[in-house]
C-alpha cells in the first residue's frame, strides 16, 4: 500500500487514493476505462485522462447516458468505472442503475463521488444523503463505503477483480487513517475495530474515525464501547449486527439520511433477530445551509454527538 498524500495534519482526501488506484489498475489491465459526466476534475481523474485519453469516456452532463454507456462498455468487454457526484449518479440515473446495471447484472463499477453532505453550502440538491437508501434494495449491487485511503484502495481493487456490479462511495472529506484489523475487504464482512461490552457503535465511511473518537470519550467515562466498521452496506454483515446486539445497545452512524441507510438496515436486522435499544446518528432529511463541519456539528455527527447517542441507548436498556 503506497502512502496517500496527507492534506492536513494526518488527514487524507480519499479521492487522491481513488485517482492513484485507478491509474494503477489501468496500467495492469487495458480493459479498465473510466466514464464521467464532465467530472474529470472533481473525480481527480486529470492524470488518468492525460495517460489514457481514449479510455476516459466523458459523456458530458448526461448522467442517464453515462450509466447506460457504462453498461454497454461492459457488454463490449471493458471494465468501466463510472465516476460522478453521487447525488447525480444515484439520483438522476437511478433507473439506469437499477435496470442497466443491477437488474441486467452487468460488470459496471459505480463510483459515487463526494457523497453525503460533502458539497456543504451548495445544499440538498447537491447532497447525497439518500444514495444508500436508494441503492440498498438492489441486492446484487455490492455496495461499500470506505473509511480511509487503505480501505478505498482495497475496495477499488476488489471492484476491478469482481465480475458484477459494485458501488463504491468515494468521500472527499478529510479523514485520518483508521487502524484496521484486517487486510483488504471481503464482501459482507464487518470489521470489529474495538472490543466493548456496554454498547456497540456501527459506522462506516467518514464517520468511522469519529466513532472511534467517541469510543475514546466513552472509555474516559468508564463505558466500554465496541466499534464495528460496517463498510459493506450490501451485503450487510447480519451476524456482526446480531453480535453487536449482545452488548444490549446499538448506535449507527452514517453521513446519510437516517431513513433507509445503515440505520435502516441495522434496525431491520435487530427487529427481526434481536431487538435492543438503538439510536441512529445521521441526517433527519434535507439539511439547512451550512458548511460540512457546521452540519456535522449541528446534527451530532461528531465524537461528542455519537457518544451522547451511545449513552442514551445505554440508558434505554437500563429502563
Amino acid at each position: 500500500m503506497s502512502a496517500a498524500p496527507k492534506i492536513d495534519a494526518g488527514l487524507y482526501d480519499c479521492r487522491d487514493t481513488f485517482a492513484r488506484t485507478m491509474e494503477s489498475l489501468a496500467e495492469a489491465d487495458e480493459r479498465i476505462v473510466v466514464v464521467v459526466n464532465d467530472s474529470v476534475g472533481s473525480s481527480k481523474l486529470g492524470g488518468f485522462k492525460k495517460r489514457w485519453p481514449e479510455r476516459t469516456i466523458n459523456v458530458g452532463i448526461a448522467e442517464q447516458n453515462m450509466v447506460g454507456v457504462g453498461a454497454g462498455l461492459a457488454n463490449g468487454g471493458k471494465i468501466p468505472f463510472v465516476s460522478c457526484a453521487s447525488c447525480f449518479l444515484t439520483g438522476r440515473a437511478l433507473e439506469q442503475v437499477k435496470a442497466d446495471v443491477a437488474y441486467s447484472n452487468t460488470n459496471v463499477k459505480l463510483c459515487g463521488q463526494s457523497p453525503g453532505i460533502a458539497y456543504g453550502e451548495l445544499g440538498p440538491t447537491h447532497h447525497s444523503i439518500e444514495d444508500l437508501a436508494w441503492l440498498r434494495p438492489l441486492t446484487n449491487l455490492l455496495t461499500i463505503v470506505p473509511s480511509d485511503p487503505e480501505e478505498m484502495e482495497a475496495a477499488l481493487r476488489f471492484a476491478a477483480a469482481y465480475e458484477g456490479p459494485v458501488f463504491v462511495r468515494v468521500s472527499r472529506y478529510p479523514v485520518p487513517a483508521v487502524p484496521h484489523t484486517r487486510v483488504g475487504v471481503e464482501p459482507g464482512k464487518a470489521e470489529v475495530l474495538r472490543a466493548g461490552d456496554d454498547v456497540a457503535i456501527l459506522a462506516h465511511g467518514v464517520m468511522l474515525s469519529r466513532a472511534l473518537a467517541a469510543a475514546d470519550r466513552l472509555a474516559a467515562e468508564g463505558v466500554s464501547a465496541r466499534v464495528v466498521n460496517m463498510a459493506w452496506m450490501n451485503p450487510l454483515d447480519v451476524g456482526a449486527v446480531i453480535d453487536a446486539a449482545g452488548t444490549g445497545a446499538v448506535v449507527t452512524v452514517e453521513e446519510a439520511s437516517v431513513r433507509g441507510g445503515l440505520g435502516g438496515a441495522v434496525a431491520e436486522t435487530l427487529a427481526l433477530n434481536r431487538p435492543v435499544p438503538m439510536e441512529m446518528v445521521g441526517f433527519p432529511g434535507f439539511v439547512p445551509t451550512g458548511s460540512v463541519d457546521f452540519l456535522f456539528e449541528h446534527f451530532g455527527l461528531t465524537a461528542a454527538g455519537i457518544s451522547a447517542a451511545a449513552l442514551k441507548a445505554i440508558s434505554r436498556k437500563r429502563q
Partner: protein
Amino acid sequence: MSLTLAPAPVSGADRIDLVRAKALGIRRCAFTMVHDAQLGHPGGDFSAADVLASLYFGVMRYDPAEPRHPDRDRFIMSKGHCTGAFYSVLALAGYFPEAQLKTYMQPLSKLNGHPNRNYLPGIETNTGPLGHGLPVAVGIAIAGKLSGKDYRTFVLTGDGELQEGSNWEAAMAAGHHRLNRLTVIVDRNRLQQGDRTESTNGLDPLDDKWRAFGFHVEMIDGHDHAALLDVLGADPAGRDKPLCVIANTIKGKGVSFMEDNVSWHHGVPNADQFAQAMKELI
C-alpha cells in the same frame, strides 16, 4: 473465429423470400403467444416484425450456440415491451426452442413480459423502461471502437419512445464519437400507447432531428424487405457517422382489423379475433 450469418446465408431473391417467411413466422408466433397469455403488445410486435426478420435473417452475424461471442453483432430491443416479436425472432434464429414460446409470461417463465439477459440467450441488456437501449448501444459501439473490433450494434426503438430524453443524450454522444458501426432503427408507426405521436408530443421533423445530432439518416418503408436488407446491410465502413433508419411502419401490420389502430398497442385478441388474424397471416 469470425462469425457468419446464422442460419446459413442466402442471397438475392432467396434472401428476400426467407426474410418474408420469417417475418410471417414472427407475427404468427407472437400473436399466438399474446392470445395464449392474454397479455402483450401485439401492435408493436407487428410493426417491428419485418425489421427483426431482416436483421436476424439477412444482416447480423451471430452464433446462437455462442450467444456472448465477443465478435457478435449486437441487437438491442429498446422497445422492450414488444417481447412477442423479440422472443419469436430469437427462437426462430435458434437461441432457444420454439416450444419455449408457449411459456410466455406464465409463472416463473424465462419469458418475462420484458426481456432479461440473465434468463435467455441472445438478449444483450434488460429493457422495458423506455429510452434505455440507445445509451447501452452507444457504450457497446465505443467498446468496439476501443478494441478495434468490427462488430456492428443495432438498436430498435419505438417512435413514442423518442420522447424520453435519455435517447437524445445518447444520440449526441453517438454523433460526437462518430460511431459509424452503430445503427438506430426507429419503428415509426406513429402511434404510442394512448394516441398518435404527433397529437401527444410531436416528433416531426424526425429525420432532421437525427441529422442535427450527427447521424446519417435513411427513411424507408419498414415493411419492404428489399429496402430493409439494402439499407441495414450496407457496409458501415463507407460512413463516418452513425446511421439512423427511420422505418415507416404500420402498427398492427398484417392483420386488417389491427392496422393503425391504437387499441392494439396492448390489446389482446378473443378467440374469433385470433382465428381471423391467423387466417390473414399466411
